[in-house]
């Protein structure tokens, strides 16, 4: 197997299925791959574009530190995280997370854990552009509750 990056931030639209294909290739001893795709919602026309800002070198390092901790905690074989930045249209993928483990419980829990982090605590700044202008979005109470499940 060639070495692939574990974490990418990208300003271009990406295709989650192609990432899953690459991630699943050559896995004779894996057993379980869980994955998650977060898609931008149109919110029935209320959100025409989502804009995500990252701090390159800081954001990816913070995600990597967290993900390596998750890898050890859940005994993952490996993981793949791709996060979109910049302007994202409804229906486009915002985030892809895949986790590989010997058994499905670990794969599912690690994927869920990484997503809770990425959605609530990862260093991104998010702006929603809609018909009534633009607004910066803060984490929701739901996001905080989800992330606290792991503390």
């Amino acid at each position, binding site marked *: 197997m060639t070495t692939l990056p574990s974490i990418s931030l990208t300003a271009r639209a990406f295709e989650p299925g192609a990432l899953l294909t690459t991630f699943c290739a050559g896995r004779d001893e894996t057993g379980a791959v869980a994955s998650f795709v977060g898609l931008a919602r149109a919110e029935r026309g209320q959100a025409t574009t989502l804009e995500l800002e990252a701090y390159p070198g800081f954001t990816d390092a913070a995600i990597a530190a967290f993900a390596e901790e998750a890898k050890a905690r859940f005994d993952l074989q490996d993981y793949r995280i791709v996060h979109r930045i910049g302007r994202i249209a409804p229906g486009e993928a915002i985030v892809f997370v895949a986790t590989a483990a010997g058994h499905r419980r670990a794969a599912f829990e690690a994927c869920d854990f990484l997503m809770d982090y*990425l959605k609530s605590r*990862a*260093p991104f*700044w998010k702006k929603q552009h809609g018909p009534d202008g633009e607004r*910066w979005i*803060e984490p929701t109470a739901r996001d905080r509750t989800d992330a606290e499940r792991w503390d």
Partner: protein
Amino acid sequence: MARVLLFGRLADQAGWRDRTVEAGSIADLRRALADGDAALGEALAGPGVQVAVDKAIVRGEAVLAAGTEVAFLPPMSGG
């Protein structure tokens, strides 16, 4: 000379996101920025705003060598 980066609503408020400022410490830098834009100075000291020096979060004071990168980070929203 520090390279100052602003993110999220701080950049929107300031009208810039990347600027070089003459300052020997974070306190110096905060004064220099507030002198040019009092509202920005207040926002940078606001609740939840963190400071990163060369991409590491710093709480409190830090000396700034030439070329140091200082980033002001408003509360992070997650992706």
